[in-house]
Structure formats: structure tokens, C-alpha cells
């Protein structure tokens, strides 16, 4: 019989976070999964999860943290990090939940999501077949049976080539303005490749040399599924590679807020070393690059004044990029109406069969507001855009898509 790990062992330093929670419930007020029909039960809320762990620590809870009951409740945290903004005691909620999830049983789908970078790479090698699979009834049934991906959930198509390959082929610019390493992450690399290509072209026109040093996926899913060892391995690989690049006078650039959060927040926290700190310091999002160009007088914007919705994606908030994204869009001529609600997808969480209905319920308020607004919508996160495209009829874009044609060099 396999031995249960104690809470202290599973949580390590994060045990203290559990203990310092004052049970104020502020996290519940912003937590997307704590405000839906199933969350009338405190156990299915953010505070409830912490209270359960406090009870375990006090030997009051008659369930092991590995048990299905507890693991299912922990699965209701999808790592959006909205709670971190409001917790008065500074409890690192999603981070400690990953640790609890790490004690859960290993399942086939968990294995897949943990290694999704590799599987996506395989999928992109045979795009026609992969797309047939994700578009056909048979394929979706298979995905649902094996990987628990709900057959009605949105699923992105494969572009064909990867952005990484494109950059390798086209990184010919001399780059008198400096060298940039694009840290891509899976979605932009295999699905939203066009956005990536346009971004690279723009940067080259601005005089940068864009490269794609060896890299793995950002590893967000490994964290979400509690595969911490794998997450550390991914972080190590990416940090070492980006560090080598930076050493020779380069900067790291991101398009995806998930990639940005990984480099800026998660890797330094997972590795706790000097290298990751230096990489974080030298990482910049494309939005901030464009703002710097504007402030230095290198670019201007020209375009008609247009109304648009700005959707605050969870990861843009977590990355603290909101102010920059809004400023860029406003400079480019957009009059923004802001919607703060979560779309409910949270990476892959909303695609999984057991969460699919809840995901839709979380997003419903936002979908309705978007439909009513009848304006183009900007959202920085790739999976938010996937969800919004699926559930609304509006035009959904990355902020760059609305800005690029309005830039005057």
C-alpha cells in the first residue's frame, strides 16, 4: 500500500501560507469558480479549500489530501491568480494548491497535459491529420474518451508549420536595435502562428533581430496539474537557454501573457536562483516594447477613433500588463469599454469534460456583455480568445491585431 504523504511534506514552505489564512473570504469574492451554482457549498470555494487544509493540519479533517474527494475540490482552482490581488494575508493560494494537487493520483490525461508540449509538437508535424481528428466527430469522441476533452468544447486547429521554424528561417535581419529572443509557448507556436509571424515581421521592421533559442512550452499546465517536478524541469531548461541568450546582450520577449508570467513570476519562484532572476529582469512583453518605441518617438499611430471592448484576461492581470495594454490600444485610437469578468476557460480547464459546464457558466456573463456591446473585442490571452470566439459572434483579437496596421514607422 502506498504511504500517504503528510501535509507538511507536500506543502513545505507553503504550509505557512495555509496557516496564516484568516478565513476572511475575500478570495471567494473574486474567484471565478467560487461564484457559480455549485459553489453554494463552502467546500467548493477558494476559502473552503484553504480551510480544509487548515483542518487537515489541525487533524480535524477525516480525509486524506490524496483522496478523490479532496483532489476533486482542489481541481476547482484553475490557477487564474485573481485571488492574489485581494488576499489580505498574502496567502499564495494557487501555488499552494499546485502542491496539494501534486499528491493526487497519476492518471493518463494528467500525463498527457503534463507533456502537452511534446504532443502538440507531434500534432503540428501532421497538421492535416491532426485537424481532421480535432474537427471530426470520431476524433472528438476519441479525445473525450482518452483525454476527457469535452466534445463540445472549443479546440484550436493546427497551423501547419511552427513559429519557431519560421523564425529560424527568417531571422536574417542584422538587428542594429538589438537582439530579441521570442519565448513563444505552445499556442502561438502551433496554432496562432500568423499572429506570431506578423509580430516577428514588425519587430524586424523596427530594426530588431528576432531569434528563437531552444525552448520548451511555458509549463503552465504542468503546474496546474500538480506535476511540479516536470514544471521545474521545464523551467530549468527554458531559463538556462534564455540566460545564455541574455548573456550576449539580448532581451527576452513574449506575446502570450502565460509565457510572460512563467518567466517573470513562476520560474523565479520554482527555481529560486540568480539566473531566473536575471532572465525575469530582462523579459519584456511586446506591448511594452511598442510603448517604449512610441515614447522614444520611433513610432506613431494613425487610425480612426473606434469603440472596442478590452477584456481583462486573468493572466494579463497577473502579469500586471493591463495598464500597458490599455494604453497601447488607446494610443492606437480605440475608445475602450472594459469587461473584467473571467471567460471561464483557464487554459485547458474549461475543455475538460467534468468542468465544461462550469466553464460555460463562469463565462456566460461575459459572453452576454460582449454580445450586447457589438464591438470588436481585444483580449491578450490566447485561450480566452478561443473561448470568446466559440461562445460569441463578435470579432475577437489580440491587441496587436488591432494595433499593427495603425503603426507608422
Amino acid at each position, binding site marked *: 500500500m502506498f504511504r500517504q504523504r503528510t501535509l507538511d511534506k507536500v506543502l513545505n514552505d507553503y504550509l505557512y501560507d495555509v496557516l496564516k489564512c484568516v478565513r*476572511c*473570504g475575500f478570495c471567494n469574492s473574486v474567484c471565478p469558480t467560487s461564484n457559480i451554482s455549485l459553489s453554494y457549498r463552502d467546500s467548493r470555494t477558494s476559502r473552503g479549500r484553504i480551510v480544509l487544509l487548515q483542518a487537515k493540519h489541525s487533524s480535524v479533517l477525516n480525509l486524506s489530501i490524496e483522496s478523490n474527494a479532496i483532489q476533486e475540490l482542489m481541481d476547482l482552482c484553475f490557477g487564474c491568480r485573481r485571488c492574489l490581488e485581494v488576499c489580505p494575508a498574502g496567502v499564495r493560494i494557487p501555488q499552494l494548491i499546485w502542491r496539494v494537487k501534486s499528491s493526487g493520483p497519476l492518471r493518463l490525461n494528467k500525463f498527457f497535459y503534463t507533456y502537452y508540449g511534446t504532443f502538440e509538437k507531434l500534432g503540428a508535424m501532421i497538421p492535416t491529420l491532426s485537424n481532421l481528428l480535432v474537427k471530426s466527430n470520431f476524433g472528438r469522441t476519441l479525445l473525450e474518451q482518452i483525454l476527457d476533452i469535452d466534445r463540445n468544447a472549443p479546440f484550436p486547429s493546427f497551423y501547419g508549420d511552427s513559429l519557431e521554424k519560421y523564425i529560424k528561417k527568417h531571422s536574417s535581419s542584422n538587428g542594429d536595435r538589438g537582439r530579441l529572443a521570442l519565448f513563444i509557448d505552445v499556442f502561438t507556436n502551433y496554432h496562432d502562428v500568423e499572429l506570431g509571424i506578423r509580430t516577428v515581421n514588425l519587430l524586424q521592421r523596427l530594426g530588431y533581430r528576432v531569434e528563437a533559442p531552444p525552448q520548451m512550452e511555458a509549463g503552465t499546465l504542468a503546474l496546474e496539474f500538480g506535476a511540479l517536478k516536470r514544471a521545474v524541469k521545464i523551467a530549468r531548461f527554458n531559463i538556462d537557454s534564455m540566460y545564455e541568450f541574455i548573456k550576449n546582450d539580448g532581451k527576452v520577449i513574449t506575446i502570450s501573457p502565460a509565457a510572460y508570467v512563467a518567466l517573470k513570476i513562476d520560474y523565479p519562484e520554482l527555481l529560486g536562483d540568480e539566473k531566473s532572476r536575471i532572465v525575469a529582469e530582462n523579459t519584456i512583453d511586446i506591448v511594452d516594447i511598442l510603448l517604449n518605441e512610441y515614447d522614444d518617438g520611433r513610432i506613431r499611430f494613425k487610425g480612426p477613433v473606434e469603440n472596442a471592448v478590452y477584456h481583462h484576461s486573468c493572466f494579463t492581470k497577473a502579469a500586471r500588463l493591463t495598464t500597458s495594454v490599455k494604453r497601447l490600444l488607446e494610443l492606437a485610437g480605440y475608445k475602450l469599454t472594459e469587461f473584467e469578468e473571467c471567460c471561464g476557460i483557464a487554459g485547458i480547464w474549461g475543455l475538460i469534460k467534468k468542468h465544461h459546464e462550469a466553464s460555460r457558466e463562469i463565462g456566460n456573463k461575459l459572453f452576454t456583455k460582449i454580445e450586447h456591446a457589438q464591438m470588436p473585442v481585444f483580449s491578450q490571452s490566447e485561450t480566452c480568445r478561443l473561448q470568446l470566439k466559440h461562445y460569441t459572434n463578435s470579432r475577437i483579437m489580440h491587441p496587436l491585431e488591432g494595433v499593427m496596421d495603425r503603426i507608422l514607422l
Partner: protein
Amino acid sequence: MTNYFSKVSSKDIDYLEKLCGSNNVSTDEEDLVTNAIDAQLGGFHKPEVVVWPETSEQVVEILKYADEKKIPVYPRGGGTGLTGTVPVHRGIVVNMKKMNKIVEIDEENMQVRVQPGVVYDALNKELERYGLFFPPDPSSGAACTIGGMAASNASGLKAVKYGTTREYVLGFEAAFPRDGLQRLGTKTFKYSLGFDVVKMLIGSQGTLAIFTEINLRLRPLPESMETSAAFFSSISDATKAIYKIIRQGLDVAALEFMDKPTMGAVSEFKKIEFPNAEAMLLIETHGSKKAAYEEMERCISVVKENGGFEIWHASSKEDRERLWSARKGAYPSVLKLGRFTLISDVIIPLSRLVEAVEKAYSIGKKYGLRTSCIGHFGDGNLHVNWGTGDNGEKIESLHRANDELNRWVISIGGAVSGEHGIGTEKKSYMRLQHGESYNLMIKIKRLLDPNYILSPGIAFDLDDLLNKSG
């Protein structure tokens, strides 16, 4: 008295499931545990079953049944109480989370009828569209419910102008163990028609009835507000200024006090640089643009006359938010200094405020505790935060220090709770606080809940109730 109540049997669970639906009844460990504790620094007390009623009628039937069977019933709102209102005698937790609808907004009469599970901030967000608000503003507004607020007579940062929850509850629909569902109060702001049972139920902490609907009076959102922070080199200067502001009848909406240790904590966690001061006052005035401005001018001149050596004035909404974030960040910042923190809630005659702060410091020193004070000083409400940092072995000294302060406060004519309530934490002071008149409360309790099934162990000791001579 362990055998006084009956245990919940499987027959009882069947009954509850039939009444409320099986989805709304749980004996699952995770549900028992998460309904076993509030925000007090206390332990877990697991109920035997949790029920989430959806209608007033279900609440009435639960109470009737529990009364017949002598099973304890504990109503629960947001669970943010700070006094340990937890199922100490086990039984049933009636969790009001599913009764969370705003039933009717009566804009013309500036009233709203809500179910008890509506969360404070959510209500005000909705009311904003009508230019109205429900003012008590407890710091826990993001999570506490209107039912919990009425049961605790909650109030907050702006009580000096707007008063407490009590001033806003016009009526209840409430379920009683023996008297079924009762509609209490009127839609008018005053009436002269016998006892005011509505007011009696406010602050009853779930010991007399379960509220199933609450009718609230509202206020129009102020047209304009002015906010300033003033710094003093002594606590007595600050309290003198407070006293003069109140004595001169100046119309302040908030008069908040923070001492040096609290400013230190806020400075560390909120990254706000304060001047080197012993005390800070946050002052806000509300009204028409002209009135708010002029009233603030008057306050500032009082502050200056009484030693306020530096004054910050908020000239924009962002400035105001920043000033408030310093005050609202006070308790959280103190919490970050260490996880064992106990907060007192004493309320003191205005003339004794300086003495009270000094008393708190000297008690804190005696027990070797980190001591910091914040308060809604416009009405004399002082929160002393006692902390041992992360030293769990000294928890007992937190309680001893708090006890010493509480007893002193009663001896000078103050009260041990300004807004948080009694719970399990302060019930031992009830006799000391109320003297003989405590027996009147016991008599009322016996009359309305003769089997003591409603929240036993909360506010009253079961022994006191069972002791017929009381």
C-alpha cells in the same frame, strides 16, 4: 450538559432531504469542516449536518422539526464573524448561501428587500445604478452577508455619520422555533405601535430567530466627498482633535485613527511613506460639493489648532483611494506581521480614548505582545490588535491581555463589543456588562426559544439558560 440535545439521526437526515432536496443537505466531511469555523482565531466545531434552504418555508420547517427533536440549529451567512459563532453543540448548520436574491428595489421609497444571503458589496454594486447605497460598510463587505450583518449589528468606517446596521433595518421576515414565520416592522421610517421587536432581533447572533428576508432603508449616494489625512506627534493631540470635531457638531463621514505601530505595518506592506508621527487621523466629509468642502475646511482648522503638524489632502479619486487603502490596509498589514493575531472590539466613552490606547499598550507590554491600535474614533470604537508574531505557544497570553482590557473597559462605562458581537468569545462578559438586566435577555430567549435550539453556546452559556434561577 452534553446530553441535553439530541444527536442527528439518519431519520433526521431523511426528513431534511425530503424537505430541502438531497442536493441541499450534506453530511460529507468536507462540508462539515468548512461550516465548522469562522474568522475568529479559534478551533473547529463540526456540525452533524449542513442544510442549504432555498425558501423561507423550509427554514420554518427546519426550526419546527429541530425544536421538536431538540437538535441545535446554527444559522450561517458569510462565515466572516470574528467571535466564534460556530456549532459548538454540533447539530444542524443552516447555511443561507442559496437565499441570496435581491427581492425588490423600491427606488421611490429608498428601500430594498433582500434575502439574507446577499453579500454586502454585491448589494451596493447593484444599488449604485439607482444612486443609492446601504451605508454600514464593514471592512468585510466583500464576503459578509446582510443576514450576518443584521445578526451582528455590523458597522464600519463611516458609522460616525451613517450609524450601524440597526439604523437601516426596517423590517424582517423571520422564522422562529415556536412561532413560525413572522413579518416584523413596517415600510415607514418610524412608527409608534408597541415594542420594537425588529430592533431587538438585531445583534441577536442567531439566538432568537433566523432572518429569511430583510427590508433595508437606503441613503442617496453623496454628491461629493473630501478626504484628508492628518498627522500628530501625540495620541492625545489626535484624540483632542476628534473630541473637538464631534463637540462642535461638524458633519464628518469618517474619523479613523491609526497609531504608530499600525502605520509602520502599513508602510511596510503598502509601501506608503508616512511622516514621523505617533498618530494619524483619516477624515472624510460628504455632501454637496460646497458643503463637503466647507466642512472639511472646518475640520482641518480644528486639526491644526490641536497639533496636527502635517495634512494630506486627496485632490483626486485616485488620491482618495490611496488614503483609504492605507486605512483599509491596516488590519491586513498587521496580519502579515504574524499569524497569531487577536483583535479586540471595545467601545469607549470619547473622553477616555487616550487612556484606553495607553492601557492597551501597557497590557500588551505586560504580556510581551506586539500591540497596535486602529479605531473608528468618531464613535469611540477601538480595535487593539494583539499579536505574538508566529509564536503559537503564547496564544493564551493574547486572550489574557484581551480579557484584561475588556474588564477595564466595562469598569469605565464602555462595552466589550462595538460591532463584532458576542459569539462564544465574549459571552462570559454578558453578566458583567449588563448586570442584573442580563436576566431579562435570558427571559426573552426562554420565551422565544424554550428548548434553546437556536445557536446554543453563542451569546448565552447553555448552563445559564438551563439554570432556572437565572
